[in-house]
């Protein structure tokens, strides 16, 4: 029976993958210290979140059947502290939150909710970039307009606010918990040392940050203006040609993660001045509201206020030369990937030829050839078809091989 359960519910683009990597890679070390991170695979909590919220995710949801109940049972069986972490949990409805918290706890369990948050001015372009990496084609201008539309009914606005509106997420997830059990970790400003964010997480998770090395942890690199513009244009071209599983492997992984975001050469995505002003005002309102709530703030609420605006470069109308240069990088990367896959195909073809030869040798017996003649004859002769049917019944299984 877990005595303490910490549910890290987001938000996306706040170092959540970084924390999840540390927790997943350190499961044994955590267990020695009485902390469970119950996961058979690195995306176990993601699948559980899909299941909890009945979310489809490009076909991955087929792997998520029963995943939440499976995770909750493991959490309940943990002897001391258990941690659950996935950023899409942020958008759960109150009914889904109630179900989640009820399923994770047994009598006497102390429930904690952890939300990590970063200033809105950095989150907005980061979310658009994430959308581009998930094959969307919405222009940056439309994306920004949808976010500012009060109805939240356009584009991905309902999703964005569901996972990024810090006060509302804390209200949905923490509304029934004691305030001191609701933890808000703020992401330090740009340029802060990388271990600072981990120290803040570790504080809430009850871990010694020094014990967990950060060297091997992957960091979500970001796309620049022209890289995002090229991928968005590519999305439009392949939208109806490439199924999701191929898109994930070829575009998101091979092109974006391994190439374009590994070496950003164009300007950083930012906000146009008017949108910056709107986002800054909203951030100030949130910080003011949060200061009155009495949640456990780890870091500084001032981290959620934007720094000075970056120079704005519009990704909807990128510099032509930069766009062309980035497109050439993309073409090069995908050519290399195609060559790698071609090599693999040649290897597999050789394997198949070898197997076919073995099969041919096995099929060259007189008995097998007689059977083949009977099957062929059965297509045109009732007598042969009857004989074949009788043979199959006598043999006792329904095979069409012979």
């Amino acid at each position, binding site marked *: 029976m877990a005595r303490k359960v910490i549910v890290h519910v987001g938000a996306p683009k706040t170092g959540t993958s970084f924390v999840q990597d540390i927790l997943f890679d350190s499961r044994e070390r955590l267990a020695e210290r009485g902390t469970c991170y119950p996961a058979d695979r690195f995306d176990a909590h993601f699948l559980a979140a*899909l*299941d909890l*919220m*009945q*979310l*489809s995710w490009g076909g991955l*949801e*087929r792997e*998520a*059947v*029963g995943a939440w109940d499976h995770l909750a049972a493991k959490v309940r069986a943990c002897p001391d502290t258990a941690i659950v972490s996935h950023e899409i949990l942020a*958008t759960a*409805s*109150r*009914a*889904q*939150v*109630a179900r989640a918290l009820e399923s994770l706890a047994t009598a006497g369990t102390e429930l904690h909710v952890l939300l990590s948050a970063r200033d809105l001015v950095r989150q907005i372009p980061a979310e658009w970039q994430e959308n581009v990496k998930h094959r969307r084609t919405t222009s940056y201008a439309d994306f920004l307009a949808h976010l500012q539309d*009060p*109805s*939240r*009914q356009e584009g991905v606005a*309902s*999703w964005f*606010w*569901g996972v990024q*509106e810090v*006060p*509302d997420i804390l*209200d*949905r997830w923490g509304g029934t918990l004691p305030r001191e059990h609701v933890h808000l970790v703020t992401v330090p400003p740009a340029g802060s040392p990388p271990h600072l964010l981990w120290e803040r997480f570790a504080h809430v998770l009850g871990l010694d940050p020094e014990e967990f090395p950060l060297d091997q942890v992957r960091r979500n690199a970001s796309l620049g203006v022209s890289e995002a513009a090229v991928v968005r244009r590519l999305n439009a071209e392949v*939208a*109806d*040609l490439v199924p999701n599983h191929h898109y994930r492997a070829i575009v998101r992984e091979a092109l974006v993660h391994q190439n374009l975001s590994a070496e950003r050469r164009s300007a950083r995505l930012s906000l146009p001045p008017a949108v910056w002003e709107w986002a800054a005002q909203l951030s100030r*309102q*949130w910080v003011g*509201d949060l200061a*009155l709530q009495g949640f456990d703030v780890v870091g500084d609420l001032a981290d959620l206020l934007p720094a000075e605006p970056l120079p704005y470069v519009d990704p909807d109308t990128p510099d032509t030369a930069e766009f062309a240069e980035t497109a050439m990088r993309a073409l090069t990367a995908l050519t290399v990937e195609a060559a790698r896959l071609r090599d693999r195909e040649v290897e597999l073809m050789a394997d198949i030829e070898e197997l076919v030869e073995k099969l041919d040798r096995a099929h060259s017996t007189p008995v097998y050839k007689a059977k083949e003649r009977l099957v062929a004859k*059965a*297509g*045109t*002769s*009732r007598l042969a*078809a009857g004989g074949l049917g009788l043979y199959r019944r006598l043999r006792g299984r329904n095979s069409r091989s012979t």
Partner: protein
Amino acid sequence: MSPEQDVAGAEYADRVRAWAAALRAGSTQTWREFRDAPASPGALLDRPHEQGSTGPTGSGPLPGAAQLELVRRLSVTGADLPEFAELADLALATSGPGRGLVDVPLPWPGSAVRTGTPPVDPEALPPDEVIRAATGVLVRLLESVDLTRTNRSSRSWRPRSPWRRGFTLLGAPTTVGLVRAALLDAGLREGGPRTTCFVLGGPLDDLMVQRWAGRVRAGAAMRWPRMWRAAQANDRVPPAIALPMIAAHLVAELGAERVHVVLADDPTATLAAVAGVLGAPAGEIAPRSEVLATDLLRRLNPALTLAVGDEARRRVVDRVWPEIAGGEEPTSLGVPAGQFAWAVACGERMAEALARGRYAVHGDPGLVVPVSRPGVRRAPDPEAVLAHGLTVVGRAWRAGRTQAAGGRT
């Protein structure tokens, strides 16, 4: 939150729970009518928390606008549903699956809440949001279907006619199902060594509707316009309805004399042509519309798969869906505007290829080419899908009650 906000929040919560309780009892009042009506002092419905319930009408999370509007609409359309209060409880407590507005609050005068989804009058909600709530309920109802029961075939037994040639049907999937059932009912034999093959077709837009329905029944969540965009991007129609390709393949395998292409724009005419070739009597087949049911099912598929798994979803859909989702008003669906020119060109290519084929063609190959039909929608109407969805929820609820009582659905 200030004390004033606390008070306003408590009043709001009480009023919402009171409306939920009224809807649960069969009221069809809208939120605006209920909110603006003077509360009757002391009425239990106005103090639902005193009922001791922990459901959505008692304590616990407040139901959102979509859930409340769903119950109200169910109450309007299904006043005679058995144990309606239990269905209402289920609907009020069930979040809509997937992406959409999160916990939509209701408009309330003086509300000081500045974050969260903005309030929406339930009547003004986009129909997609209420459909989402309805699919959540459908998942809960369908996941409890008893799959151990076997459906008895409704087909009456008839002696087979062994002197007649057997038949094999390919092409338009829904028409194939309807004609096949009619031929079997007439005592004809399917398949066999001297089978005659029929490739059934009609206007390309109807073929695509049938293929879309088939894909969705098999588990896809694909929207109607996406079917067309994919076809256009690949410059070919889905192989299952590529009539010339199917016919050419059959000719290569069996010879031209055993292959017939039948083109008609309704199943009765198709049956007449097939029966004519086989020397069998032909009857009437009622045309079947499945546009709304298909659009509803494609929304339901991901959540139902998550709830029960792919295999069980398939069995639930095979066993229960035709019964609860059938019988919709005839609805035509046209080619989306962006693909119309491509569809015409593609249809013309198909018609030419059919006319050139070495097989018998019954009907005009030109029928395959889609024509512009003024007034025909180019995508399912969400309001119509919602109306049909309410019917489906009602039927699924009745079926579940019957099952719970030990009867057959």
